[in-house]
């Protein structure tokens, strides 16, 4: 029943766990009985339908959650920065004293980047689960769209400024670049693509992990 569990996990991102479970039961008994493709087709249609209903039912509520999510994400980034600083300092000491090597030679230089690009969105997913259980997918997409819109607007302004011959560049760096807006249109589009794809996947993985932990704690 691995497919049923996977389907219940997908549906639990757009409805409560109990309802997702009963929906999967219905799909196993009805549409998807004996046919894997029909089953997954029905799961996808049900998930999309529930997703759209949540968007239509509370667009402002979800925008509020997304804005709050941005602040939470920023505080996670600060925490990640502190953690990176401590870990890099330890790594630097060990590498320098024991191996007479610089930190820039080793894999540790990727640590802050990994923390920011994987750890922070994952932790944000856990927060999203606690904040709006059963509506994580909508919350995550709204947050991604918000990020993408901000990047698109800022990138477009910088691009226009660069075209007019002005120097325009915003750069916020805490070990790695958190914000980097310049006149490069490809760079901006890459960030937009990241927020609408990979970022979504990592945040949703965090939300699913939060749900799994919560169910485990309840003995379900």
């Amino acid at each position, binding site marked *: *029943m691995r497919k*049923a569990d996977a389907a*219940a996990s997908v549906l639990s991102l757009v*409805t409560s766990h*109990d*309802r997702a*479970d*009963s*929906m*999967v*039961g*219905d*799909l*196993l*008994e*009805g*549409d998807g009985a004996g046919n894997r493709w029909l089953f997954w087709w*029905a799961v996808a*249609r*049900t*998930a*999309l*339908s*529930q997703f759209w*209903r949540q968007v239509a039912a509370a667009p402002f509520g979800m925008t509020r959650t997304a804005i709050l999510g941005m602040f939470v994400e920023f505080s996670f980034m600060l925490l990640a920065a502190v953690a990176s600083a401590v870990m890099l300092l330890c790594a630097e000491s060990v590498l320098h004293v024991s191996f007479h090597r610089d930190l820039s030679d080793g894999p540790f230089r990727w640590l802050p980047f990994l923390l920011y690009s994987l750890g922070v969105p994952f932790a944000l997913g856990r927060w999203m689960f606690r904040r709006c259980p059963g509506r994580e997918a909508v919350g995550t997409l709204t947050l991604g769209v918000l990020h993408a819109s901000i990047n698109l607007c800022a990138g477009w302004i910088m691009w226009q400024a660069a075209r007019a011959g002005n120097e325009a560049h915003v750069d916020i760096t805490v070990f790695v670049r958190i914000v980097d807006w310049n006149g490069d249109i490809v760079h901006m589009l890459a960030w937009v693509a990241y927020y609408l794809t990979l970022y979504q996947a990592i945040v949703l993985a965090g939300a699913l992990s939060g749900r799994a932990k919560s169910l485990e704690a309840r003995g379900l």
Partner: protein
Amino acid sequence: MSKHKVSPLGEFEQVVLLAILRLDDKAYGVTIRKEILECTGRRTGPGGLYNSLDRLEEKGMVVSRFGDPTPQRGGRPKRLFTVTPDGLEAVSRSQRAYQRLMKDITIPGVLHA
């Protein structure tokens, strides 16, 4: 019947409520879809049905409870629906409105009250 104002029903919501009433205490996703197909010939997607059921529950026209898990459903429970007095009032009001509209007109193949 409750005295407070009951919000009007959409056409599909009426169909869903009537199907639940026909099924009595055996109304859950699969049986409701089957009943709608048998009575109206209308093939309903699972997503559309769950949306309508959730909306009706939010309006207080149906209530749901979880049944016991069965092996046929991979050990997952049924979500069983029951029409509330508000739901009953809303559906009877809609049907009365249809009857008033049908009065004094003749449509071939339709039985008139």
